[in-house]
């Protein structure tokens, strides 16, 4: 296991390196001159040169990369273009904090509900309950989150006062009030992800239930709940963990539509605004953050899987 962790961490360092290289390269190889786009078509050559310099594009690619590495490790990502005087890091960290609140709250609801749904569907396989869970899940997850979000606005937030049309609570709100404001976006995430996670859990749970080792456990005289807790779950939740790991990056940075609808200042909306206003430093900071979250999420998922399933450690710890 130690060997696995060390190798997996080294792999993450490599991933981080690749992320940094890609972020450095994109403005250099993307079509058109980012500096001209930012400065505007009618800008004077002096203004253009100043923007180019502020983007660091006058330097060599290698220098740009080392600058980026320094920036990342000193948490100094420069200043926002659109809000001069405000550091990118402070904007990113605020959005990141907001996104984290949303994602953590969403996962706390989605994971238990979807996993239990999948387990129940697997245990009651081919009954009406199974069909309801599977079909409802498919139907709901085929709707994009901005559609579900909008529907909830119309169906719940408008007629019922308890549900809020915005997700961002007023300043100084209590924890419970914050939760109340976040309720509809979280329901949206639940709706979209329930079917996906439940179906994956269901499939792997059925495989585990039908396995010989589960039969052995029943024959040993364990009760159904003991068989599930001690033998089935650790085998059946591996794919679920892998899926959640890869979806975390999206939950943090990709839910632009949802954040716009509920006017929530998360990372997705921040990146969207940065693109919209050609705020290059902010965009860079946002993309970098999402990439690192993605990297850490898959790292966490892999470590959890390796802890759950000893065979998963083999791929990295035995050099073949």
């Amino acid at each position, binding site marked *: 296991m130690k060997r696995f962790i060390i190798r997996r961490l080294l792999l993450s360092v490599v991933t981080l390196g690749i992320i940094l290289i890609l972020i450095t390269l994109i403005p250099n190889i993307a079509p058109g001159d980012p500096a001209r786009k930012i400065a505007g078509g009618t800008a004077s050559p002096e203004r253009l040169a100043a923007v180019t310099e502020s983007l660091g594009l006058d330097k060599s690619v290698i220098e740009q990369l080392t600058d980026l590495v320094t920036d990342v490790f000193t948490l100094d990502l420069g200043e926002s273009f659109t809000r001069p005087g405000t550091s990118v890091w402070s904007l990113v960290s605020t959005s990141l904090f907001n996104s984290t609140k949303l994602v953590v709250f969403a996962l706390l609801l989605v994971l238990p509900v979807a996993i239990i749904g999948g387990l129940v569907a697997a245990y009651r396989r081919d009954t009406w309950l199974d069909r309801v869970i599977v079909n409802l899940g498919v139907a709901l997850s085929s709707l994009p989150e901005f559609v579900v979000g909008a529907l909830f606005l119309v169906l719940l937030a408008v007629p019922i006062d308890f549900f809020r049309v915005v997700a961002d609570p007023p300043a100084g709100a209590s924890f419970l009030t914050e939760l109340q404001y976040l309720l509809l976006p979280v329901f949206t995430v639940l709706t979209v992800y329930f079917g996906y996670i439940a179906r994956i859990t269901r499939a792997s749970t059925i495989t585990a239930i039908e396995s010989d080792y589960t039969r052995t456990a029943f*024959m040993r005289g364990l009760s159904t709940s003991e068989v599930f807790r001690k033998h089935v779950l650790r085998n059946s939740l591996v794919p679920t963990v892998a899926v959640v790991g890869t979806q975390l990056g999206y939950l943090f940075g990709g839910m632009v539509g949802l954040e716009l609808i509920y006017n929530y200042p998360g990372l997705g909306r921040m990146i969207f605004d940065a693109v919209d206003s050609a705020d290059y430093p902010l965009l860079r900071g946002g993309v970098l953050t999402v990439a690192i979250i993605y990297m850490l999420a898959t790292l966490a998922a892999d470590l959890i899987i390796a802890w759950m399933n000893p065979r998963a450690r083999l791929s990295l710890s035995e050099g073949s």
Partner: protein
Amino acid sequence: MTASPTATDTAALSIRDLEMAYMVRGTPRAVLRGVSFDVRAGEAYGLVGESGCGKSTTAYTALRYLPSNGLIQGGTISVGGREVTAMSSKELREFRANHASMVYQDPVQAVNPVLKIGRQVAESFEVIGHSKGEAKELAHKALQRVHIADPEGVLERYPHQLSGGMLQRVVIAMALASDPLLLVLDEPTTGLDATVEAEVLDLVRELRDEIGAAILLIAHNLGVIRTMCDRVGIMYAGRIVEEGTVEDVFDNPSHPYTVGLLNSIPRHGARKTDRELFSIPGNLPQIGDPLPTCVYVARCPLATDKCSAEVPPIVARSDGHWTRCHHPDRIDEVPLPDEVSTAHNVGTEEVIGVHGVSKTFHQRSGDVPALVGVDLGFAEGETLGLVGESGSGKSTLAKTMLGVHEPDEGGAITLRGRPMATKSIDRETESIRAIQMVFQNPDSALNRSWTVRRILTRAVSKLTGKSGDDAEAQAVQIAHAMQLSDRHLDMRPRQLSGGLKQRVAIARAFAGDPDVVVADEPTSALDVSVQAAILNLLAELQRDVRTSYLFITHDIGVVRYLADRIAVMYVGRVMEVGPTDVMFEGPIHPYTEALLSAVPSVDGEAENRIPLKGEIPSPKNPPPGCVFHTRCHRVIEGTCDKIEPPMVEVSLGHSIKCHIPPDELLEMQKVPWVDHSVPEL
């Protein structure tokens, strides 16, 4: 003296008129149709029959482990006087934990892959009320009891770090945790090497007296039943058709089905040149089919009008030996398998030659020499049997011949004297056509979404260059030669039985009229009667078209029946090669001796088993000197562990890689495990 219990109160397991069915779309389909038998404490009872006859279902039903659509429709199951069918689910759990245990067919699947061995063994003790601490200690003792050399180490390991034989020991240790009244062994050694099988059977035999449990053993290997059990029940279509002591049933079979089963396995040293194996015509009735009066009537050579009109009575043959047959007195009229009239000629020209072939796999952790200096050749129409334990390099040799693995520099594989390209992609169509393969598992070897016609037509066009109607016509012709009917041609593999699928796989291999067919355990997944049909087919094809076979198997009986010559491999080296009849007269390599002695015989021959200690060494670190010296029972200290023995020719074409001079070896091996009797079937 008949089916009625000798004394129910002394029976640890007593099953009476058990009826069990699967519910399929609301209709019950009968699986068990009135099964009755008793197993006394300390007694071992075997259940034998083809796949689908209900033997495993009986075993699982005894512990009331039914599939979700399974339904016990009648009868009683009593274990230690308690009625299993009447237990509440809580009582059933308590019963399984304390009084009944099971050992399963595939130990690798039967243990949880994500939990340490220690956790799983300890759980068997926790469930019967021991504390965690006690359970841990007991787990340690349990592993010692099944002779695991390093219990501390094994407890800390995960299942994938142990071999199949070791895992089966662990499963047995868990099964014995509660000192059960009933121990069910469901094909406990199927899939294990013959040597490992022998060790596991030895262990069960040894523990048997100690535990005093009633043992119910399910096996399709009649030899395993013969050597392990006191009494045996022959099952057919959900009913026991004959029962008695193993001696009575196997030596004086009284039901035509029992006779059919016994005639379908190669016995008493029978060879393909003597007679065919008996293949029971037709198929087992499907689950749920309405049964005629006698379950076997449709396939029975003795059947008369009476058999389809009246239910056969239970006829006592001797004390405790009975049969369910109208005509037990005509049992001798069951026809013997056909004698082989056409002479079997082995040519003299070498078709495929393997010359000094080595294969080293380069891994990050070091080189693994999987094959070392292999020399073998096949004449036209010859069968070379290749035997050895798992990991001895048999399959690597086959794959290297086929060009899947590229041999190391220096070796050569020749086709009629001309070297072939070492990689299959570089080979000419002619060379590819010349060597074809039949795999162990036809399910994964055939394209599941293609019809048989398409599979065969494509093989013909790929291998012979024919196309369109020509190719299809030839495909149909080949299918007919394999005794596949036109009906089968438009079916897909999943619609065919295991035996028919293997016929298709053989037809595919024969599509291009190959010179050599490499068959890797082609019958080990099949029932004995189906195996007989496949072996007959292979022998017949060889007589007709003079194909050579490389026949890889762990079944010594099969290799003895089919092979003209046998090569024995160990750690990537050929230890012995020689003509089959010469080898069975001795002298033979000590390793071959151990392999042969491990085979449980249905004829109940003298037990002189030579145990092989430990596991086969990894080719990564072969022992110095003779690679076999670490496990050899005839090792000469100071010689065998230092000097690699040369290949010595003992007699014409028979060579042994051993330091012991052949005449001394012959003297040492004058033990009567070799069955010299002439075929007497």
